[in-house]
């Protein structure tokens, strides 16, 4: 069974029919060519397939394409500036050595981007929790955390008596 859906990906509008059984990941990768979203497990365990749906990091392997009707989607291909300049988050991942094999990288950059754009403050532990939906086997997460902290500069509370930590 097919259903017509309309959504935007990285600002561009799409309107076409999808098989109702297809995941958003399948549609993004196979039909639209957004191969930056990766499949690592297919069941929402690893986070490699994450994109931002209306700004929220989401595992697209367990998100049906038909649910994306009317949504605004952002993939890794839409993070850099149109002129090719990397975003601050991408720059931080490059500079801090947060990239090794690169398979988990797009998802982590998108989640970090969402955190940065939220404008909220995070403690280090909260930041780790926010990123914990992404598995990485290469980096031991050390430089990923550094890159995320650098991306959120000014919004990471490191001291326990910060107003944020006290819930003020």
């Amino acid at each position: 069974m097919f259903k017509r859906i309309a959504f935007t990906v990285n600002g561009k509008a799409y309107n076409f029919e999808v098989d109702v059984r297809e995941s958003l990941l399948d549609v993004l990768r196979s039909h639209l060519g957004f191969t930056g979203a990766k499949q690592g497990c297919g069941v929402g365990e690893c986070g490699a397939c994450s994109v931002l749906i209306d700004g929220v990091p989401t595992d697209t392997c367990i998100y049906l394409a038909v649910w994306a009707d009317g949504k605004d989607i952002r993939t890794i291909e839409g993070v850099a500036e149109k002129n090719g300049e990397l975003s601050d988050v991408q720059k931080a991942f490059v500079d801090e050595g947060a990239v090794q094999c690169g398979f988990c990288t797009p998802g982590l950059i998108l989640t970090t981007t969402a955190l940065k754009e939220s404008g909220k403050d995070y403690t280090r532990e909260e930041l780790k929790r926010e990123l914990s939906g992404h598995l990485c086997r290469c980096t031991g997460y050390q430089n990923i955390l550094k890159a995320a902290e650098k991306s959120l500069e000014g919004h990471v509370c490191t001291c326990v008596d910060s107003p944020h930590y006290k819930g003020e």
Partner: protein
Amino acid sequence: MAYTVVGKSVRRVDAVAKVTGRAKYTDDFSERNMLVGKILHSPYAHAIVKSIDVSKAKALPGVEAVLTYKDLPDIRFATAIPGIIEAMATDEVGVAELKYSTAGHPYALEETHRDKEDRNILTQKARFVGDNIAAVVATDDLIASKALKLIEVEYEVLEPLTSTDAALKEGAPLIHDDCEGNIISSKGYEMGNIEEALKESDHVIEGEYETSIVQHCHLENQVSHAYVDSDRRIVIMTSTQIPHIVRRIVAQSLGISWGRVRVIKPYIGGGFGNKQDVCIEPLNAAMSLAVGGRPVRLELSREEAMIDTRTRHAFKFKIKTGINNDGKINGIYISAVSNTGAYASHGHSIASSGGGKFRYLYPTKALKYEPLTVYTNLPVAGAMRGYGTPQIFFAFESHIEDIAKKLNLDPIEIRKKNVVKEGHVDPLSKNTIRSCSIRECIDKGRELIKWDAKKALYKEQTGDIRRGVGMACFSYASGTYPVALELAGARIVMNQDGSVQLQLGATEIGQGSDTVFAQMVSEVLGIPMYMVHVISTQDTDITPFDTGSYASRQTYVSGMAVEKAALEVKKKVLTVASSMTDIPAHLLDLKEQSVVFKDSGEKVIELEVVAMQSYYDRVNAQPITSDVSNNARINAIPFGVTFAEVEVDMKTGKIKILEIYNVHDSGKIINPLLAEGQVHGGVSMAIGYALSEQLLFDEKTGKPLNNNLLDYKLPTIMDTPDIGAAFVEKEDPTGPFGVKSLGEPPIVSPAPAIRNAVLDATDVAFNRIPMNPQRVFEKFKEQGLI
């Protein structure tokens, strides 16, 4: 030596491609409407297929082919492509005889040195839950899955041997008919006279240690595409560490000549040794042949990949050490039983390699190693980061801690008293320790963790939360010499502007080898990094021959080829420059994109002018290139140490790592940022090995219980503490720019260091990993602590 680019944390050459999603991995090359292959896995750990009926599956609309062991490897239906069948027919071998080894080792001309050939592409006898019985090719995933369910198989179920004890029991059924006692090999070694050495010792101390089966869990599962090109050759794009070896093994598995296979390796999403094996490519090739050479995609699911690729061998060790009152070790006896699972794959090499690399750390008068590699009806064990060393070092570094405790010796002093010194020649491999900073590594780690203060502070604890510190050392190797061939290839082409393309047989798998190779070329040729273009994709038709990425060999072994290729280009540039300037070449050097005087650094001529001359001189034009191979008949031994501080919750059995430092003697570090990244990743994997990871199986049936990323406890960012990485940089005289290996070493020593810290905190010796909360809790209960 002072370098310009070597030793600097330059940006990864593939970083931008990877943060923008432009880096393409195998599945990113999928074409729409590509056929899909799927595998029918055995539900039984040990069974024989009595009958198999594929007629219903074949009749399903959308199914293009169904394969069973009966069809392979002669693939009668390949006649659709004229020429294929003739090619196949050149090797007149029967189905059952065409067995091959999947291990990613260089081919050996000597038959005795080859890996055990015990595998068919599809099998009539299932040897583990997940074994490959049949396969389908269909127009899409759903049809392929449905077709699998329509294949009717009648099995005769045999007794599953789910442990080495069961497999070694007298009268146990044979997993492979030609393998008596289910033992692949028992080859070990003996140096000196162990009986005498033990007799002469003041103390003989014994211990038993055990490690578990774990899995690589690279984020990208095994995936490949295969088709037959217009030249009637099989082309396979695959996520592999070893493209040239894949080419050979696919050809061997199908009984065709090696030149009929072409393998392409794009970016890969991690390997850790699991892709130093040829798991899916032969079947993928057969699938394409079965449908007239049309492209077929074969991708394993996570659940399949966790049981039907490779795992890390579980080991059981018994150790006896003879030691004097002053802490000097006289002799060590180690027996080991290695569980290799259903097929040999790397088989006994793992046990041999662990025992070989262990030998460098503590040279003693006598050392006897008796390993046994045993088949069981569990998933196949193969290469995994560390290749046998995390197992043996867990055992021995736990054991030496137990000895220190028993004899009331300082754990650091006992190690320092026994560790190797520079100049030592290993009596068996004849490898010489030409650089060794293990003592300096120990001192640095001791300082970083504030060992002495904490040791004093954590004495005699009694509360519910207890803390402790522990350490462990290791030795490793740089590549496999003298065990296997260490051939590497590199090719450089200089462009008109003086920039170069660098082509390599060694594969970038995330470790950063492309970047450090580019740094080497940049250093030798005096050009900036942006002028070195690394061709990251390997294609066996085009790429220089190199056996691939494994054994921590790239920077050391392939680096030699890269340096050699760069030096050849440099020589040619200086020769052309000399012919243009009449200045003898030996007075010249390359720096900042120019030919300069070696002594003063004064500029002679711009590199670009020389490069243009090499392309367009009416008489002498000859573009500057090099294409070299290097056969490294040498090895350099890296060392290192882990220091860990833990906090143990006595009520719940939960172990928390408070601080952990790995200090490495890996010679010169080419790129500190990337090197730290290797240490972080290795330590993190080792923390999982020590505390949480284990592939579990039903003891009765051999069925996997947690082959997914939810139930298999891979560390998340929440579980991973801050990891400290430090280096003692002393250049090794044999390595390019003084390097020794670093890729695998970080995983070797953290597990015993953590175990020793837990011992320090609780007085309880855990001789089996992982030390997960359940096991810790049970052990505390057993010891009456709770």
